[in-house]
């Protein structure tokens, strides 16, 4: 088992956490308040905007390597 950090609640801060684990939490959690600068982004578009950015970036990085890894259904 990979325990990313197993120092117990009073241990030192987490080592470098994975961005994807962090975004699971930051984008879907936390107290939501209407700030003074709320812009539609913060309340509505943040999740979509960020994930789109992520996916796009990752796709760009993978693109040179060519074919996807998913095992697709054969064509009939």
């Amino acid at each position: 088992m990979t325990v990313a950090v197993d120092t117990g609640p009073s241990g030192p801060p987490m080592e470098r956490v994975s961005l994807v684990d962090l975004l699971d939490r930051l984008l879907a959690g936390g107290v939501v308040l209407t700030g003074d600068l709320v812009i539609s982004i913060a309340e509505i578009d943040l999740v979509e905007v960020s994930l789109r950015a992520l996916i796009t970036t990752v796709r760009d990085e993978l693109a040179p390597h060519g074919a996807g890894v998913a095992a697709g259904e054969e064509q009939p």
Partner: protein
Amino acid sequence: MNHPMSDRDRQPQTRQPPVRGEQTPGSQAGTAVYLYGVARGLDTAVLGGVTGVTSAPVRAVPEGDLIALVSTVDLADFGEDALRDHLEDLAWLEAAARAHHEVVDRAAQAAPTAPVRIATLYRDDDRVRQVLADQHGEFTRVLDLISGRTEWGVKIYVHPEAFDAGAALPEPQPAAARGSGGPGASYLRRRQAQRRSRQEADRRISDYAQSVHERLTRYARASRRHPPQDQRLSGHTGVPVLNMAYLLDDEHTKEFLDTARRADAELTGVDVEVTGPWPPYSFIDTTDTTGGTGGGRREGEGR
């Protein structure tokens, strides 16, 4: 994923005056106050040396028994247009997310701390104090819920080849039973068998993931399911079948981790990955208490 959205939020925001260009007493032109989270009983010395978003220093803004963790940031980075651009930039987003987390995490390890949604901005410290005063009841409720508890993440990945090895259907089905029909029918039968085999494997994997969840949730106050992660983002070679967050009383952490470790060792081809301790991001009811609707999804309350 469940994120707050109300009809009100969809409409153009007209209630608050725009920040840009406005000056109120005590505010600096061109800046805003970024709010990371709200703590109770925090010794603010733990924030020493922490840098916030865009490398800004982190300050504490107290109001009654609550302490807001904030940074003064430049509107050149956090104004609407700038923010929209930045959020499309993965490097910027990552830096901001890590900085936000670092502040919340540091505080959460020292005292109950309610993380606030990323990119929550106010005009100045007075506005932050006003929000703490107005929302005192709500923050108190949240902080009571998370006091003495931490969040742990558990993800289960399956390597289907290994998981299937023992029970895969024999490759060629005996063609005797219904021999007619030629190569086309034989192909279809083979495809059906493959499909059944795959469905069976999927069902067993899903049952297994559920059984691990049931064992773990006995030690948890609450649990929340996150969507499976995109394999391209996680970089994990296994197929993600479960992505849970658990809120644990601190004294149950050891039993919980032992249980996860046993589950990981149980089956070849199945990885049980634990992350934590996390600030309780996943267990904050994500309702906009200042007017929105919606709510965080939470599963069974244990104990």
